[in-house]
């Protein structure tokens, strides 16, 4: 069974030869490899989805200010703003992704999906998808299984950690997971789901991890919103059978290659990009603990 997540091509082939729906091999992987019953997996994912929705709702209703002062109730402002740029649904999508991620920045309870830094994307996307299309919780859980399958492959072939692959590894992977889930939940074919993943990776490729003062706030919060938007634009493209041209497995390889060659200062070290700007440095000086003892002797 473990060969299953060596790539998207083998996942598809397995589905075809065994006549399975896309989420079923992932469920099978978890039950066989990790010894959980199907019911446990379903209930566990349903609970995770409940926490995601709760995070969205908290972010849209409770006070959300971070200790650094960089996050100040942004999601609520977006949700309630009278000017709608595209449609009310788009406004809701953006504010929900912001909301769940702000909860993370403000020490609230979230689901790392796949990481805490990207914890706003799946909540924003799935909450909005379910709301718009009246999908059952069961369907959403199936979508989460597909997302998990996508992440398991990316983890294996590239990385999910900002410190290893930059922001593309965190918000990029989350957007790919979300995009695949959208297409799956709306009845797309296996090819369409994988195309959505490929297109999303193409859109997120190369994104660096440059958190101001090293905190999971700026630009992480707004990138969760943009990643949620990209997940939806990719799904819209893929559902119409527009090809990504570069197959999904090769897109993941490219992501791994880009991550490997990315300089260390762009991998969560807060030494480059936005973190290194004048304002970024000023904030860093204000926020970081300055009263630090320096040991006289290197040998401790």
């Amino acid at each position, binding site marked *: 069974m*473990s060969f299953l*997540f060596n790539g998207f091509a083998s996942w598809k082939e397995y589905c075809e030869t065994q006549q399975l729906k896309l989420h079923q091999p*992932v469920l099978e*992987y*978890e039950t066989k*490899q*990790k010894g959980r019953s199907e019911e446990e*997996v379903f209930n*566990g*994912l349903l*609970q*995770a989805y409940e*926490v995601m929705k709760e995070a969205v709702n908290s972010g849209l209703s409770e006070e959300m200010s971070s*200790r*650094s002062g960089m996050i100040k109730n942004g999601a609520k402002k977006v949700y309630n703003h009278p000017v709608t740029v595209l449609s009310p649904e788009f406004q809701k999508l953006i504010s929900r992704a912001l909301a769940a991620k702000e*909860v*993370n*920045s*403000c*020490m*609230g*309870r*979230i*689901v*790392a*999906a*796949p*990481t*805490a*830094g990207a*914890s706003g994307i*799946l909540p924003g996307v799935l909450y909005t998808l379910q709301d718009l299309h009246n999908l059952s919780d069961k369907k959403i859980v199936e979508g*989460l*299984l597909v*997302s*998990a399958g996508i*992440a*398991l492959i990316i*983890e*294996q072939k590239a990385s*999910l*950690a900002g*410190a290893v692959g930059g922001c593309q590894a965190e918000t990029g992977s989350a957007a790919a*997971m979300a995009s695949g889930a959208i297409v799956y939940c709306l009845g797309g074919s296996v090819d369409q789901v994988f195309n959505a993943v490929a297109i999303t990776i193409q859109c997120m490729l190369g994104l660096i991890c440059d958190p101001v*003062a*090293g*905190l*999971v*706030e700026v630009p992480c919060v707004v990138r969760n919103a943009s990643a949620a938007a990209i997940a939806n634009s990719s799904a819209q493209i893929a559902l119409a059978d527009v090809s990504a041209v570069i197959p999904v497995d090769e897109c993941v390889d490219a992501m791994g290659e880009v991550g490997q060659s990315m300089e260390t200062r762009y991998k969560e070290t807060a030494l480059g990009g936005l973190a290194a700007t004048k304002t970024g440095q000023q904030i860093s000086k204000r*926020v*970081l*603990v300055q*009263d*630090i*003892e*320096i*040991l006289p002797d*290197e*040998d*401790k």
Partner: protein
Amino acid sequence: MAERSSVFDMIGPVMIGPSSSHTAGVVRIARAAIRVLGDQPEEAEITFYNSFAQTYEGHGSDRAIIAGLLDFKTDDKRIKKSLDHAKEKGLKYTFKSVGNASTFHPNTIRLVLKSGNKEVEVIGESRGGGVIRITEVNGFTAGFSANLHTIIITADDRPGSIAFIADVISQDGCNIATMSVSRKGKNDIACQVLEMDSGLRPLTIEYLNSLNWVHNLIYIPNID
């Protein structure tokens, strides 16, 4: 080769933000440390090292460590307000930052915990994704992750003690996953740390504790 991840590593864990290494991992270090103390601490001296030294406030690691000392779990919403809970419970604490402990992992914490006349010193690393490693207990090299069942035995350094303890543990059907031994000096005091896949019976712990060459035994079941 590392063990393959679970679906629940991809969609999960459920945790308190903002970062698994700065909140979840830190809570778990403190949860392991209070089990070493064997009691709710009355006083705690907390030192954040290296990368943690600068960022612990911004990431809320100060609240995370206090939450762990109060035995809150990693997904407990009270973590955010743990300093208020500490005040209520009368836990006294001090924070200190040390910037250049080059022999330590970037995210290291040292805890000195006191309760009555008991005092312990624990050093732990937060290694990412909420995974921790307790590297030192009371000056002895430790090296356990606290997600299995751990036993820490301080005893006379003498021939056969390791074999004896391993044999007693095997009577409970316990498989030893990892083991580390360190000592102050030859024929002095030695410390054995064993991680086991399953738990020990209370009777077994009592028996090991009653041996005249065993000075101290700490048993830490899976902290989660």
